[in-house]
């Protein structure tokens, strides 16, 4: 056990201290801070252009501008209404010159009307806000002329209750679904990247040790199987550490950005109603996925004699991971599709796809448990098989770079 921890520590520490690891971690965390602060950054840029929030109004009514301002203030829109006394031609010229963005013509021919003129359709977004304000103004004016009081107006505009309900038992409510979608997407992405990144690291490590022939010294000191699993565990721990740094980095990034988790961008991502269980499942499925592919990667890494050949041999494994991710990503919009359900029980795809289903649907507990069971058994079998190949593979040198060498390696390992 002693030597197991020494290899474990070595695999963990030497990788954790490399420049590439430190830089990657810092860059990702920094990008989190950047992302979280995007609203603030945009605001900072926009702050200079006070013009943005000024609406020029050409008033053709009997002085309704102050009341329009009142409506904007009620909406908390921050738009400042400025009456203009220029002609429309002059205003349009100002727009094309770029001194103003848009203007509003307010008319009252028996009924309140308005025309909104902006340079391009891009300004349409604010147009909606303005329309709402004008509509509110119209309502207020009409109510006044009808002699309604405030509570009557209130009743008139009470929104109806409109609820969506899905019949399928496993389906989540529409609201839950759109909230889950963003978070599940991000987590699947994370697991996917991690499962490509860390097993690759293992294959490279093993191939480097083999090509530099330090492997012969290592396996004459400790058994290859111990060596293999200590390495997988060491790099796995490194992976979890890095993910935790990312997680904490992301959390603090959002904290420092001063934005509320329930607002804007983050509400879309579904961070407002974070379920701890989802994160636990994410960690569990990441680990399962990692171990599955790490054993495979170590096996493949043990077959090559030169580090240059690693990528070639890893290709079939990469394709498996990519197929799994494609199923998972496509399943985000249709989590109940048959092929998604089936592949959530196929070991090589299960971690990503079952996580997707757990995230998007209300599954009975036995489904993820069965899938986890299947994966554990597969990892066990692969571990046993991988250890056999590894034992022979690390002693094999020559221009070997095809999967056929697995048989040769097992034979060599068996001779042992």
């Amino acid at each position: 056990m002693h030597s197991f921890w020494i290899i474990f520590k070595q695999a963990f520490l030497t990788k954790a201290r490399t420049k590439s690891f430190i830089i990657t971690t810092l860059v990702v965390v920094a990008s989190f801070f950047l992302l979280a602060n995007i609203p603030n950054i945009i605001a900072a840029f926009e702050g200079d252009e006070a013009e943005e929030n000024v609406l020029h109004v050409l008033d053709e009514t009997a002085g309704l501008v102050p009341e329009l301002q009142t409506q904007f203030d009620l909406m908390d829109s921050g738009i400042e209404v400025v009456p203009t006394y220029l002609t429309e031609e002059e205003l349009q010229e100002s727009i094309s010159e770029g001194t103003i963005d848009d203007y509003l013509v307010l008319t009252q021919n028996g009924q309140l009307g308005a025309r909104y003129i902006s340079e391009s359709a891009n300004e349409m977004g604010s147009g909606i806000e303005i329309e709402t304000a004008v509509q509110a103004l119209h309502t207020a004016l009409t109510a006044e002329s009808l002699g309604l009081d405030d509570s009557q107006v209130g009743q008139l505009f009470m929104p109806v209750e409109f609820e969506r309900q899905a019949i399928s038992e496993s389906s989540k409510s529409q609201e839950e679904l759109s909230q889950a979608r963003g978070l599940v997407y991000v987590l699947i992405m994370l697991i996917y990247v991690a499962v490509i990144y860390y097993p690759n690291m293992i294959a490279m490590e093993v191939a480097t040790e083999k090509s530099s022939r330090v492997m012969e010294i290592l396996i004459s000191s400790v058994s290859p199987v111990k060596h293999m699993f200590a390495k997988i565990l060491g790099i796995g721990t490194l992976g979890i550490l890095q993910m935790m740094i990312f997680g904490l980095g992301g959390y603090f990034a959002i904290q420092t950005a001063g934005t509320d988790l329930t607002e804007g961008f983050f509400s879309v991502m579904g961070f407002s109603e974070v379920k701890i269980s989802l994160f636990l499942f994410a960690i569990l499925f990441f680990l399962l996925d990692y171990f599955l592919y790490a054993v495979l990667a170590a096996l493949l890494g043990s077959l090559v004699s030169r580090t240059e050949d690693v990528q070639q041999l890893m290709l079939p494994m990469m394709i498996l991971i990519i197929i799994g991710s494609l199923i998972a990503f496509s399943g985000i919009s249709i989590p109940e599709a048959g092929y998604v359900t089936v592949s959530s029980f196929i070991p090589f795809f299960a971690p990503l796809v079952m996580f997707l289903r757990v995230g998007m649907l209300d599954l009975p507990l036995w489904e993820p448990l069965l899938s986890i069971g299947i994966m554990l058994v597969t990892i066990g079998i692969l571990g046993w098989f991988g250890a056999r190949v590894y034992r022979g593979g690390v002693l094999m040198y020559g221009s070997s770079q095809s999967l056929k060498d697995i048989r040769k390696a097992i034979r060599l390992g068996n001779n042992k």
Partner: protein
Amino acid sequence: MALHVEQVTKKFGDFTAVDNLSMSIEEGGMHGFLGANGAGKTTTFRMILGLLDPTHGTVRWKGKPITYSNSPEIGYLPEERGLYPKMKVEEQLVYLAQLRKMSKADAKRETAAWLERFEVPHYGQKKVEELSKGNQQKIQLIASLLHKPSLLILDEPFSGLDPVNVEMLKRAILDFQKQGATIVFSSHRMDHVEELCDDMSILDRGKVVAGGSIKKVKRSFGKLKVRLNMDADLSGLSKISGVENFTKTKDGALFQIADEDVAQVLLANAMNLGTLRHFAVEEPSLEEIFIAKVGKNHA
């Protein structure tokens, strides 16, 4: 006998890499392993180390097979240099020693002492890939014996070294033997084996074609030679019975003789022919034995 290799055979499919090989080394002995490339030296070493299991036969170290439980007693220098290219020298020496159950503090202290001995104390913080081949070889040797193994297996320890470094490593290996270690090493260089070892084995295509103490091997090989340096015509001496071969040299002649008695007869006869400048009875060198035993198969 500390290391016992008994009738060991290793087959890879139809190919027999090592064929019925036996050898024994006493505790504290130094055994030379000679053989052309592909003779089975590395396979034999791997079987001794327990990396490969023999198809037949047994390997015993102090009466027990070598497994991972007694691996701390074993030191190994592989033929192909095996170190982490990007790891610092001290760090990896300590790591490898720790795997052989040496404590970190001891490993650090010993590393410093060995680097000092090899006159490269400042290399501890360098990466291996920054070192010259000769210096990498020194580090490799340190890696094999840092944890004070009682059995040291060296596969081609001197290849690719300049004569100064060869001397330095030889002395280190001899000192290590004096401390009680049993050493097996392989080499292409017969002179190294001749100089360092008491016993040796010559391997040819998996078989031991000559083995035992070097003295005995030379004796049994026979083929003593007499070197005579004189100006007279020596061709008449080739007719003396017991002279098996006669070669003219620049300074006189070289006779291959059947046994030591023939040398005396040669000397007596030569003295009648004129002034003798040099007379010597020469044992066959290992090189000759090697070429005689192995060379003809390769010719």
